């Protein structure tokens, strides 16, 4: 049976290397996913994820065990990404994104052994279109999309992570959704008739 976050943190604070490793392995994928969504550069996202984990581990002794570790870690990762974007002054990418800019989406698309070539091609188009549309959003919109729809977080948790009022989070999410739908519609994707 897998240990809880709290048990792992207690063990890590006692110096257990296995506990540290388990925490990294448990959260590396969502943290890298979040950062990739925000900064849109794989190598940079990995560096920032590493930096976030290191910051978290150095402050692990001060972590209040009754808090939710994932929220705390995501907050560190989010702030790290926002600081990095401010430093580099890169907030959005152009809409002319190429396939090489969305490696994670494209590399993991279904194989051609189960889909017809037309479906695969269309699927790739859709994956690229989604990546482009999300990438064209403001960084805070990208974050709320990731937190809400990929990590499945509640509004209040997102508000805590992003240090925003609850109403602002809802507004961001609504605007992000509308902007995303508008972009995809402009690219030729149509709503269903039913």
């Amino acid at each position, binding site marked *: 049976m897998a240990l809880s976050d709290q048990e792992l943190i207690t063990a890590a604070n006692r110096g257990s*290397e296995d506990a*540290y*490793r388990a925490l*990294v*392995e448990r959260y*590396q*994928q969502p943290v*890298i*996913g979040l950062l*990739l969504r925000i900064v849109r550069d794989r190598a940079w*996202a*990995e560096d920032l*994820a*590493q930096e976030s*984990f*290191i910051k978290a*581990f*150095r402050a692990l002794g001060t972590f209040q065990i009754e808090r939710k570790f994932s929220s705390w870690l995501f907050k560190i990762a989010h702030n790290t990404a926002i600081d990095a974007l401010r430093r580099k002054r890169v907030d959005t990418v152009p809409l002319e994104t190429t396939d090489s800019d969305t490696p*994670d*989406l494209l*590399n*993991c*698309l*279904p194989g051609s052994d189960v*889909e017809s070539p037309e*479906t695969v091609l*269309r*699927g*790739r188009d*859709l*994956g690229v279109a*989604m990546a482009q549309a999300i990438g064209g959003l403001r960084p805070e919109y990208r974050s709320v*999309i990731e937190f*809400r*729809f*990929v990590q*499945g977080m509640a509004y209040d948790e997102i508000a805590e992570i992003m240090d925003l009022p609850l109403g602002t989070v809802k507004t961001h*999410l*609504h605007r992000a*959704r*509308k902007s*995303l*739908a508008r972009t*995809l*519609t402009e690219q030729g*994707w*149509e*709503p*269903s*008739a*039913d």
Partner: protein
Amino acid sequence: MNRVNDRTLSRWLRYEQLGDDVRAERILGELMSSLPPATVPTDFADRVLVGSGVVRARRAPWFRVQPWVWRTAFATWMVSSFVVVLWFSGFLGDLIRSGQALVLGSRAMIALSRFGAEILTAMSGLLRAGSAVSKALSGPGTLVLVLACALASLLALRALTTLVVSDRSTHHA
């Protein structure tokens, strides 16, 4: 992304168009969760643990050997190289064959011992002399003797000064 996701996207756009926020959000959640997750490098956890100082960087096997092993190996190599050089040069063989090594070694040891004994004798004499002097100085009569000498020196200096002054007065007169 497949045909199902394609239809999901269309449904989501439809609900967005209708302004049905609840359904639109639910369908977008389905669509986003069907997107492939980010891939993670296989060594990512190791990099984090090394970077945070939780574990030390994995080093090559020869770097993990204890230092004393290196020192012992180096000393053994040096000694064996020296012996091999002597052996092949014939010097060691000649010495052993002629038996001169033992004789030379014994003589050297005797000479060294004698020298050491002389040094020790000299040091012992110095120690005895120092001890005698310190005993004499620490006795009660020594202080009286030193004070008497000092007083005599002062009196002699005074007498000499008086003599010189009177001689100059006589000369001027």
